């Protein structure tokens, strides 16, 4: 476990929505996705999150982390990758914030993929961001303090 730079470089003021969040630090390996899924399931059980909220957040967390681990922090020298996930539940929304120190990449700015008309025309890949965009109520990004910050939010009560 690292206790490192994500905390150190961050100015957490009283307005920081994730100041008192639950936090999970992850190594830059795809095997860590199972641990992240289990961690979120534990928090969902503790906070009695609706099953649909858990589904949406769990799938979005996996998609976002898979992209970061495969394409993001893989650009860094071995051992320098830092990935952390914060979880916070407010009255009407459960949110995850993923922080990583890979090159700046904004998944929310990617163009919507056009669904193919046939298997022959379908291109392999590209559905992860599409799924996040459709399932989440909040999907926002910023780059601050040398880190990508991606927020995944799902309402607790459907509107």
């Amino acid at each position, binding site marked *: 476990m690292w206790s490192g730079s994500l905390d150190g470089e961050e100015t957490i003021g009283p307005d920081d929505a994730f100041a008192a969040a639950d936090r999970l630090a992850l190594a830059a390996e795809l095997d860590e996705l199972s641990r992240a899924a289990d961690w979120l399931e534990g928090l969902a059980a503790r906070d009695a999150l609706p099953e649909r909220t858990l589904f949406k957040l769990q799938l979005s967390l*996996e998609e976002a982390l898979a992209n970061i681990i495969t394409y993001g922090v893989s650009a860094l020298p071995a051992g320098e990758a830092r990935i952390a996930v914060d979880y916070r539940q407010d009255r009407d929304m459960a949110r995850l914030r993923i922080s990583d120190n890979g090159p700046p990449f904004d998944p929310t700015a990617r163009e919507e993929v056009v669904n193919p008309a046939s298997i022959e025309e379908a291109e392999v890949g590209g*559905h992860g961001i599409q*799924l996040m965009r459709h399932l989440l109520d909040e999907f926002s990004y910023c780059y601050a303090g040398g880190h990508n910050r991606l927020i995944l939010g799902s309402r607790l009560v459907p509107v």
Partner: protein
Amino acid sequence: MQIDREQNDTHTVIRVKGRLDTVHAKTFESYVCDTIRDVPGALVIDMSQVDYIASSGLRSLLIAGKQMKAAQRDLALSGLQPHVREVFDISGFATIFKIV
């Protein structure tokens, strides 16, 4: 994830149980591609015990789908659970795959 297959007179059924996620998609893909190579004829992938699929699982299904199309063989998916169905609807896979 557990996976096995059963061959009958007209087609082969691949049964998957568990999560078709990023961690398991490669194993699933290898198994399905090996089956396509080793067993002739139509193929049904029984998804009734799959309660979760990520884009990596979609990717593996698409690779299998493309191989079957190229070989002019019939591929169908059966027993889609609600979350899997939702992911299929969003990604357009519900339209391009034969679902029974």
